């Protein structure tokens, strides 16, 4: 466990990224706060459309039209990224902070050799001459475990498997030893045995370089095996945040609990899986009050009125444990205890 009284490398406050579409304003990210500490892996978990990918793109300021960051602050290396000029931001990307994506093969440019694509990072940020940059690229490819890197550097992306392409992406992202790496579903498109390889690689490089990582995934298994701390997102907001052990041992939020109950776990066969009824709300017409309230079993069982009218705050509900739920909010503490008691 990392020591949390260190200065965070990244601080996100009240981040709001909205998409202005013909049908209305999609509030993809709507008030997200979190800190990332040196050397830790923060898992950002949630279902599709919960805003986890948009959050990461917002940090790099890569949200395209019709999306726009409408509010918030992102503090990184002593600067608020949202007030930097585009040129300052360009110097930041790929250098101090970098990103890898879900589809490694389509994320590489099909018409350039992979060696050139990795070397490009050195030529643009360090002004290295071509030859030197290429040599460095080959070195990096070797580091991320590409067999026969000298030769493979001449290969084009379509000649590589998904796993190898993801290794190239990682090489590219870690080339300049950035402070922050954002990994957006880095293993989702890969097979299980390849996923294991990539997970090992990221963990190994994190140890070696001390990079802080934001790991975005929908797979609780990946989170459990890799992350130090976890933030659970639902409908554009963080609903729960805790250390990984704490979260899996004592999930608070009804959504987190539902999520955990709904996945089959290897070696623990149950007759039935738990179910979160309904589906993710439309981000244009969000439900009144708590965004999870229409699907919340706890609300129905406890017949809580407030959930339907007011969205709860993300409050501390335990040591290093934050939760956005009326059951755990100050006034409602008793109800939360009641729930906890019922659950045990």
């Amino acid at each position, binding site marked *: 466990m990392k020591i949390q009284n260190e200065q965070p490398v990244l601080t996100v406050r009240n981040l709001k990224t909205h998409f202005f579409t013909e049908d209305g304003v999609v509030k993809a990210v709507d008030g997200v706060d979190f800190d990332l500490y040196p050397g830790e892996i923060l898992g950002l978990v949630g279902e599709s459309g919960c805003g986890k990918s948009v959050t990461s793109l917002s940090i790099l300021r890569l949200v395209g039209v019709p999306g726009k960051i409408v509010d918030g602050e992102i503090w990184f290396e002593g600067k608020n990224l949202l007030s930097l000029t585009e040129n300052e931001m360009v110097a930041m990307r790929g250098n101090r902070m970098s990103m890898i994506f879900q589809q490694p093969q389509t994320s590489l440019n099909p018409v350039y050799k992979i060696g050139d694509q990795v070397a490009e990072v050195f030529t643009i940020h360090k002004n290295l001459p071509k030859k030197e940059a290429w040599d460095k690229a080959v070195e990096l490819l070797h580091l991320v475990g590409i067999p026969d890197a000298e030769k493979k550097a001449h290969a084009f992306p379509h000649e590589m498997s998904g796993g190898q392409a993801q290794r190239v992406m990682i090489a590219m992202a870690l080339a300049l030893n950035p402070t922050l790496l954002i990994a957006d579903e880095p293993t989702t498109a890969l097979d299980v045995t390849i996923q294991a390889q990539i997970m090992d690689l990221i963990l190994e490089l994190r140890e070696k370089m001390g990079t802080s990582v934001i790991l975005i995934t929908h797979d609780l*298994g990946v989170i459990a095996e890799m992350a130090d701390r976890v933030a659970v997102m639902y409908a554009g907001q963080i609903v729960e945040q805790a250390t990984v052990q704490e979260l899996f041992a004592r999930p608070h939020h009804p959504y987190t609990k539902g999520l955990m109950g709904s996945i089959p*776990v290897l070696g623990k066969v149950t007759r*039935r899986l738990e179910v979160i009824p309904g589906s993710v709300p439309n981000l244009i017409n969000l439900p009144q009050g708590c965004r999870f309230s229409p699907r919340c079993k706890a609300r129905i069982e406890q017949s809580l009125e407030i959930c339907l009218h007011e969205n709860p705050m993300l409050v501390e509900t335990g040591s290093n444990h934050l939760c956005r739920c009326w059951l755990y909010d100050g006034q409602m503490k008793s109800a939360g205890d009641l729930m906890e008691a019922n659950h045990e």
Partner: protein
Amino acid sequence: MNEPLKTHTARMELIQVRNLKKYYTIRGGFFQRIKSCGKAVDNVSFDIFDGETLGLVGESGCGKTTIGRTMLRLIEPTGGEVYYEGNNIFNLSGGALQAIRRNMQIIFQDPFSSLDPRMPVGESIMEGMRINRIGTRKEQFDMMIDVLRKVGLEDYHARRYPHEFSGGQRQRIGIARALALRPRFIICDEPVSALDVSIQSQVLNILKDLQEEYGLTYLFIAHNLSVVEHISDRVAVMYLGKIVELAHRAELFYNPLHPYTQALLSAIPIPDPAVKRKRITLKGDVPSLFNPPKGCRFHPRCPFAKDQCLVEAPPYREVQKGHFAACWLNE
């Protein structure tokens, strides 16, 4: 919470697959000769018992989906036989084939392309009965409403079009459509892998409920071992066009005999940080079907490969009662 293992008092084989083969060829050169041949399904045999769920797992491109499609003759096989209640469906044609096909249905992975966007979903569900001329219009309609309710949808949804439904709802409609023909056997081809986690469990539960209610037999194809373990009675593991291991679920998970199965099991991330395991990480990538390794196809990645494995493919046989495997380590 662990439920007792299902016991089969009368283990009748509903489906028998024998030496199933499906080869794909690439042609090239001046005279368009066959240049290479990919054995997507290479001499695969297994049985599915009445009322059970047989899980079929493997990584992408291992041929698991091709097995499902060839069994229904959606793809023409290169060789082998598939028996449904003792009738080889590869020998049938016309009416006899159609009569058997009604009993064998399929649910697909992609909830978006599996429904005709220009057809109200009620029509889609009734389509099978129309094709097979089952019942009157009224009976077809009643049946449609019945299965719609069975999968947790409402009557009025029948008039709606697919674009008005979410992924999970569409998957329910896909199930309803398969169910409407009252089949005995359903191939579930990755039915939950395109769905969100919280929706997966809804669909898995429905599949289990329906199996109980109608005594359905499933072939459950998936790449997610946790899901397969959850739903299957027996599990078959595929690698590069061949089944490498097949056993009862518990047997397979607690006593895997093939190194590939062992690696696969250890590679799956467990959503519990308290569990610490020693992971067997396989080296390298899955080889191409068009250029499979000689001998045992798994040997280049196998941590236990012996000299023999490089030369000769191991036989696929019953190592222990009901536990099949293809590995020289067990010989």
